[in-house]
């Protein structure tokens, strides 16, 4: 008997979506996806992928999946977790499904933990978590923090940070000394200004997304 593939196509009213088993390595997922596409791409040709359930992917992983699927003539409209709100058009079957998904999404948010890091993050160190990160120390240039949630640095932030990496635009980055090499929140990217006045200031600052850009302001 063939083992169940960790990647499958499923359909709902809005279109095709991808279900991916959690806790499977990205390279195994890419291989299984390719096998699945080799087998069944003809059947799905011309349709569109509207979402993805199960494992959370990073931006670079999503880009890889999107290019692989597009190469088989299947359009990828989105790889975001399926929106619980489905346009109620016909069947009574849909609403119960919607409620189930809402509960699952909430549970995942509640479950996401905060990772505490004690000590300075030196150049070359990379932290990648689904939840929040709190660093009791500095983040040196060359160090990277990628978090699905918020990032708080109780020290000097001079490295690279990406908060809300899985699509949460409400994520914030807070640091006692705010001078990252580059900051990203969800899909927004920014390089903070380098001015003399700013460098000497040692007050806590917060970065957040507002009106389509990343804004940085002091916290008092």
């Amino acid at each position, binding site marked *: 008997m063939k083992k169940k593939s960790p990647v499958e196509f499923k359909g709902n009213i809005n279109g095709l979506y991808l279900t991916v088993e959690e806790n499977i390595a990205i390279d195994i997922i890419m291989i299984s996806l390719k096998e699945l596409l080799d087998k069944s791409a003809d059947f799905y040709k011309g349709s569109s992928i509207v979402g993805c359930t199960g494992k959370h992917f990073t931006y670079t992983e999503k880009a890889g999946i999107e290019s692989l699927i597009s190469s088989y003539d299947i359009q990828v409209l989105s790889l975001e977790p399926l929106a619980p709100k489905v346009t109620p058009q016909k069947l009574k079957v849909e609403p119960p499904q919607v409620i189930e998904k809402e509960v699952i999404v909430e549970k995942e948010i509640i479950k996401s933990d905060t990772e505490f890091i004690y000590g300075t993050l*030196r*150049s070359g160190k990379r932290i990648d978590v689904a939840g929040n990160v709190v660093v009791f120390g*500095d983040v*040196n*240039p*060359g160090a990277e923090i990628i978090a699905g949630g918020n990032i708080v640095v109780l020290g000097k932030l001079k490295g690279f940070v990406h908060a809300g990496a899985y699509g949460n635009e409400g994520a914030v980055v807070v640091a006692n000394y705010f001078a990252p090499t580059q900051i990203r929140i969800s899909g927004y990217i920014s390089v903070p200004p380098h001015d003399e006045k700013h460098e000497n200031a040692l007050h806590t600052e917060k970065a957040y997304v507002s009106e389509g850009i990343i804004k940085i302001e002091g916290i008092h």
Partner: protein
Amino acid sequence: MGESIVITSGKGGVGKTTTTANIGAALAMAGKSVCVIDADIGLRNLDIVLGLENRIVYDIVDVVTGVCRIKQALIKDKRFPNLFLLPAAQTKDKNAVNPDQMKELVEDLKKSHDYILVDCPAGIEQGFKNAIAGADRAIVVTTPEISAVRDADRIIGLLEASDIHDPRLIVNRLRVDMVKRGDMMNVEDIQDILAIDLIGVVPDDEEVVTSTNRGEPAVFRDHALSGMAFLNISKRIMGEEVDFLEFDVQESFFEKLKKAFSFGK
């Protein structure tokens, strides 16, 4: 039982070999039994800096592969009876030795010497891993340049991950005139980023170039400022508390200029 110290940096060309040669010579001058090991297999330099390249018969790869005994490979410096060099191989590369062999070798040498200094190659791969195997302590060398400091930061992270804690910092090739003009990082800026204890500051000195070409470490020449700095570092390694040198002494004697420096005592 001796102590093994690895001298590393990450970045190439910052002065690891010069430091190893000079500290080794200085410790030997103070009466300690010192063995310096060149771990840069394939690109050996420590023998040249010490002026001992003509006397190489066996090297470190011969020792770990059993071609000869350690004592046969060690070169005794004729200028100082208690300074020994274990040269690297020039015709092989870093994969010829593995960390376990290195560890065994260093442990063996610790039995008969007070200090084992390992000259680490640049980089973070096999050569680095070999050099740090068997090290009790580490000295990280950097120059006051942002690229060297970035690499030093990485190296310190890797050292901590390999359980070598509390490395000491040497800032090499400091140019006091450039620091005064604000064109070069000062020692405090570097310590701010790296956050490890300072064990020495060595000024940029032309003597280092001439002494390397002659095969005579700068510590042998009394008037070299860099030589004095290395001598002080060797004293601090032996546990003495030595004030850090003020490098402007030769340039200007006005009090207010002295106050413009900020390297601490």
